């Protein structure tokens, strides 16, 4: 799996992501500067990592979504290439029009960093084939603006087409407002585009991949992508 990690000014989880990609796929990802206009040839997966691109000034992800490299990312997605946006990356790809909806401030108006539980809704996608449907995984979140919302029609479509891949849940997989830390509608933590090749999610699976760091629940996402690409090749 050849991955490309996009680096915008103010992004700060690109190292976490690069380490995880290397660890799981065995290959060093390319780090691609925001001012570039092309992705490295042979890129299988584009990752837009977490952080505070442009300081989150103006609106989270709004400036990064208009960076020169984003045309290449959109073209990659249009060709069916895989795109993963995590945290600020999710905000950026929403702003870039690759996914519907927006991320509002957490309902308690505070930044929240903690481990949360996610229910994996489907296992038949490139991003979730490493998990079982209904499986509950534990991964950290670290965001102030992760409260997903879209208009009623869009939500109905996302739900109807099974495009909600992750939901905030209790440790035993129940959807419960007490376990939905940011107040996202329908406890949505991650969604897929209509072609099924672009995933945006708020939590950080890349921070839970090493046994020695306490939890490996995030590994399945990356291992699944590696398997998917191997099979496709």
């Amino acid at each position, binding site marked *: 799996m050849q991955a490309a990690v996009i680096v915008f*000014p*103010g992004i*700060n*989880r690109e*190292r*976490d992501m690069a*380490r*995880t990609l290397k660890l799981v796929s065995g290959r060093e990802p390319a780090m691609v500067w925001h001012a570039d206009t092309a992705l490295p040839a042979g890129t299988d997966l584009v990752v837009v990592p977490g*952080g*505070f691109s*442009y*300081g*989150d*000034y103006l609106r989270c992800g709004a400036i990064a979504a208009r960076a020169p490299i984003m045309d290449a990312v959109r073209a990659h997605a249009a060709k069916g290439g895989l795109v993963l946006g995590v945290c600020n990356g999710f905000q950026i790809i929403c702003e870039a029009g690759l996914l519907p909806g927006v991320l509002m401030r957490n309902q308690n108006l*505070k*930044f*929240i*960093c*903690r481990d949360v539980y996610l229910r994996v809704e489907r296992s038949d996608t490139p991003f979730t084939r490493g998990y079982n449907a209904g499986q509950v995984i534990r991964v*950290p979140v*670290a965001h*102030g603006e992760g409260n997903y919302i879209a208009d009623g029609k869009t939500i109905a479509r996302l739900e109807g087409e099974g495009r909600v891949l992750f939901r905030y849940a209790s440790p035993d997989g129940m959807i419960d407002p007490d376990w939905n830390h940011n107040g996202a509608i329908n406890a949505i933590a991650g969604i897929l585009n209509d072609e099924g090749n672009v995933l945006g999610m708020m939590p*950080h699976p*890349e*921070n839970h991949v*090493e046994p*020695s*760091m*306490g939890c490996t629940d995030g590994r399945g996402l990356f291992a699944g992508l590696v398997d998917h690409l191997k099979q496709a090749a």
Partner: protein
Amino acid sequence: MKRKPSTPPRVTPALVAVHGLKPDEYERLKSLIGRAPKFTELGIFSAMWNEHCSYKSSKIHLKTLPTTASWVIQGPGENAGVIDIGDGLACIFKMESHNHPSYIEPYQGATTGVGGILRDVFTMGARPIACLNALSFGAPSHPKTRQLVGGVVAGIGGYGNSFGVPTVGGEVRFHTRYDGNCLVNAMAVGIAEKDKIFYAAASGVGMPIVYLGSKTGRDGIHGATMASAEFDDDSDEKRPTVQVGDPFSEKLLLEACLEIMAKDCVIAIQDMGAAGLTCSAVEMGAKGDLGVTLELDDVPCRESGMTAYEMMLSESQERMLMVLKPEKEKEAEAIFRKWGLDFAIVGKTTPTKRFIVKHNGKVVADLPIKELGDEAPVYDRPHAETPKQPVLKAADVVPPMNTAEALIKLVGSPDLCSRRWVWEQYDHVILGNTVQRPGGDAAVVRVNDGPKALALTADVTPRYCEADPFEGGKQAVAEAWRNLTAVGATPLAVTDNLNFGNPERPEIMGQLVGCIRGIGEACTALEFPVVSGNVSLYNETNGRAILPTPTIGGVGVLDNFEGSASLTFKAADQAILLVGETKGWLGQSIYLSEICEREEGAPPPVDLAAERRNGDFVRTLIAEGVATAVHDVSDGGLLVALAEMAMASGIGADLDRAPIVAHAFWFGEDQARYVLTVDPGEAGQIVDRANAAGVLAREIGTTGGDALAIADDRSIPIAKLRESFESWLPSFTAGGHP
């Protein structure tokens, strides 16, 4: 509209006083330069000679601290301290206060505190890997406290989260003596290659001096002077002297600085912190025995029409000054442009040892550079020793409630309750190296990809320092050392952040002197040298001083993070051991203040020999893999420590009867103690080994169940403890009654 530069005001005694210079200090200034200063020169002197920059009241006492060891690469006097952690790596760290700005404008005061300390660390070539902080607030019932807690915590998170460094630990306390003057002490820790550390001393004549980072504005002018004055009721009026933090610019500055350092472009580098351009330029020249000439017309400014005085004293954030290798100018400039930052050559080094500042073609300052830095006044201020308090006998403390009720109340008290509400607002997992998250004795952060790790903590017990500065100073160091030991780390060095009242009062000076003596004695005994630090004086409002608060930031190393110990009980049926002697010391304990509503008595003394013996023994057990859970016993005493272990794991304990007066045994705050668990079959021989090593150890119970069950006493359910422990801070900050 462009403002015309106005004529600078005449230097009068009133103007000198406004600049915080005492009449005798002004006379000294005049005799050093042989004439009366110009307006800009007066500003420069006031910036260099205030307490914050010159350490004039503390210097002679700080000199007594132990600062060397074979692993110390750089002690106090640079941007931060540097220690060797093996494998060619160095740890660079420092703690600094941002107290006054945080009281005036809590969010921005805290952000710029974090920004400033991060710059101190990456200026030396280190990539920051962790931040900690120690916060002291007024009584929960004070009308400003809730707003300060919310603002400061949000500010610390707002900066660190965006900059991209995990905030992994610290402490929070409440006491009425901080009502008018909260404390915000921020610590940053970074890692660099041992042979690639950058210093502030300039070298070479005619070398270009480069201005890096954000533009200069009119913010924070005379911030350092404000930080060196007491507060009164009008202090809120000082809001314009607080700067605004921009973590985005700082993140860019970090990446750009590390990039030009990697490309070997830098001769010397210094961040612009307190007293901005003045302090950084003077320090670079003075440390390198060189003169400096600055051309202010070349300084990137945010506003037009800024005067020389304003530019020299601005404390705009996210700026650096660097002496560049001339042949690398193009390369360095390209890197800064790539990151969208200002890069301007604003001066050069000279052989004259003069600090010359030019603006609009005129020389606005021409001063001797060594004298500005090194000849600042130094005072041996009169100091009165704090009177000793009598030792409080346990028999003189009548328990007003039973053990179970007292424990539930204690774990839900402002000083002992869960800090989750605070640290969940800090990204503590970014960089993917946080092995032990907040909530334990010390944070453990993996270095690069491991297996090496650092253990980090920040500690002080101000009520002990108030009652006995010498013992309190010792205790702050001992507790930091103990917290590092409790996770299995070898303690290496400390940074000290000394927060006190007005040093011109002999009783306050006595506290400072006593604490420094105690810190020195403990650091010597524990081979735990001081490598960096900061002094914050004049923490008073309307004549009432804060509790003496010498915060100690400790750093230790683990060869393999997988061998670190944590405080959670790992399984049922483990034997629980108590290491260290328990006399039942209730003087100055939290039990006494929270349960008996009394603050009195001598604080627990620290026997440094026992501290070392006990700690070394515990660390050996951890290294051998024998200790399955470890927790130091501190605030609240033994039963609070056990409750924390039970709450963290969900596993309870059956505890033997107290061998001495129960409330003194369970809640006394005797020092040099640890609770640990071991496999049941090992307990006997470990106690024997302890005795052979001169360490007191005894078995006090067994893990298991869902409650703390003390023989012949009421059982205390973990669920009930957790409810009390987790509820106070969220409810208080949401507006609940304190």
